[in-house]
């Protein structure tokens, strides 16, 4: 099989960090804060590497968009088994406003340039929770898109002949879907358990190449059509009120306009 897989990986604030809003309310604090690969992207990389180990694909290419630091994230993907990386340089203001639309344009352009047969992405990123990039990329390329998860237990992703076979658990049992390649697949939490990078693989990853590319080279305009006006913390949790009778409860709910 000569298939090439493109895997998108995003560098996000580590899931264990307590997020703080910047004092000027324009975003969250990212300086000096621990970052790591988006957990859904880890699962995407794991799935791609598994396909390579099953000899269903020939090459796994990890892609990330952002400033210099995203190279760390690409290196992690390489240490997990990706063959080479592509770093799309986006920095400063452009990076702050980078959203699913621009990323999907970049991925679509790269998919054509690299002649990828399959794109595997994380279903969503844990910083913006957009869940849009996979779908937009597929739309731009006019490829079918599937999440082998869709909120239920995923069993496997396989390539048979020129089709992608996806098995997923649904309420009634197991559903097997065949979709034409090339396609976009988005990975949800239960698809697999990402492997640890091994020490030898980390050392091998050092020798793997990461190519640098600018969005302009791909003919993509990264300016945003969205403007963030304000970022706020969720409202503080208020204490509850205890009531004596059901009658009081109904009264309070009516007062609050809930019923």
């Amino acid at each position: 099989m000569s298939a090439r897989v493109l895997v998108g990986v995003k560098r996000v604030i580590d899931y264990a960090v307590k997020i703080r809003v910047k004092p000027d309310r324009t975003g969250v604090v990212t300086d000096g804060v621990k970052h790591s690969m988006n957990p859904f992207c880890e699962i995407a990389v794991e799935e791609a590497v598994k396909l390579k180990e099953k000899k269903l694909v020939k090459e796994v290419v990890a892609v990330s968009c952002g400033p210099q630091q995203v190279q760390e994230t690409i290196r992690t993907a390489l240490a997990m088994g990706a063959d080479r990386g592509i770093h799309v340089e986006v920095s400063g203001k452009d990076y702050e406003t980078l959203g699913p639309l621009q990323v999907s344009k970049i991925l679509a352009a790269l998919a054509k340039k690299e002649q990828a047969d399959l794109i595997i992405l994380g279903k969503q990123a844990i910083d913006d929770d957009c869940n849009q990039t996979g779908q937009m990329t597929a739309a731009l390329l006019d490829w079918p898109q599937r999440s082998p998860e869709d909120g239920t237990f995923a069993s496997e992703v396989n390539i048979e002949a020129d089709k992608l076979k996806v098995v997923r658990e649904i309420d009634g049992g197991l559903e097997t879907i065949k979709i034409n390649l090339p396609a976009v697949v988005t990975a949800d939490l239960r698809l697999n358990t990402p492997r640890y990078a091994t020490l030898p693989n980390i050392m091998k990853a050092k020798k793997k190449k990461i190519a640098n590319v600018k969005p302009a080279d791909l003919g993509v305009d990264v300016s945003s059509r969205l403007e963030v006006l304000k970022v706020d913390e969720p409202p503080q949790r208020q204490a509850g009120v205890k009531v004596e009778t059901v009658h009081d409860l109904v009264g309070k709910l009516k007062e609050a306009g809930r019923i």
Partner: protein
Amino acid sequence: MAAAMALVRGVRFGSYSIGRSRSLIFNSLQRRGIAACVDPSIGLTDEQKEFQKVAFDFAANEMAPHMAEWDQKEIFPVEAMRKAAQLGFGGIYVNPDVGGSGLSRLDTSIIFEALSTGCVSTTAYISIHNMCAWMIDTFGNNEQREKFCPDLCSMQKFASYCLTEPGSGSDAASLLTSAKLQGDHYILNGSKAFISGGGDTDVYVVMCRTGEKGPKGISCVVVEKGTAGLSFGKKEKKVGWNSQPTRAVIFEDCAVPVTNRLGAEGEGFSIAMKGLNGGRINIASCSLGAAHASVLLARDHMCVRKQFGETLSNSQFLQFKLAEMATKLVASRLLVRQAAVALQEGRPDAVSLCSMAKLFVTDECFAICNQALQIHGGYGYLKDYAVQQYVRDIRVHQILEGNDFFCLIHVSEILYVKLLQI
């Protein structure tokens, strides 16, 4: 953004936890700014950061959730250690041609420091195992390396280091276990005390007397479990290090083939001491990990515990105490890493630096963990809280692989010799 914040703040990765459950320590690991000053990844190369990340992840997922159980039930976690070996932790500084990872002493220190946050006792055993594998790799001939190292690096087989005897601890050169040459075998008689892993491990690296009194009469042989005449004492009951069994190792007319001797006759003591240089860095690194985890646990407790109307984190005394602990942690870390670099570069000060590092770091880190326990108040004394296990587990680091007193003797000898030379 709000949804993301709610999601991350109330981390309910129920499904994510199926593969990866993170321990409480790491959920609080990175409060903005504060962790930066004790961040163990500062100053490392990208590659070293990757090694450290794997070790931290492994510690958080595979070790920390079981740390208390392994301690209470005295379980030797063979499966978890074999998983670690699959990642390359079985022979970190052993040559790749026999299955090792071929990393430097500094890389090793970073890895053990990170692993130790998950379980000090298990990490300390893994470090002893690594030391034995390295000794065979470095001083063994090709047959010996190929016979023992691959299995040790994959942890198919486990190793123990046998130097100490009931009558010779710090005065290791006075050991009595004898090895008399008979034909093509050495016949071993004697006993070793306090052997980590003893009875449960497969390969024993034994220092024994083949020649005259003193260090020059000592040789190093590898004894395999199951050899006739090899038996073990009862499992010792210890204050900490409970995830590794400790037993006496007894030799009664135990016949060991001459082909199992590492290096030449009379080289055993030098081999043992060279192994210990690295061993001291490893043990000190384990202390670092425990201290790091304890500082973070103390900080978290201070942010939560209220007395006299405010959280402990508002008490200037405690703020300063924590700052002191953080300072000593960073100072210790720098010393250990310097010692590791000196050793891997073969610098003339390497041996003394290893002793100094062990002496200073094990003491300081124990004080840090102890202080962290104090900050927890009564809760610190309960086994439900991890800090007491860190304290118990690293207490022994001030004793073994170079007792504090011995390290002082060692360093002062070097100082006096140098002084006399002037």
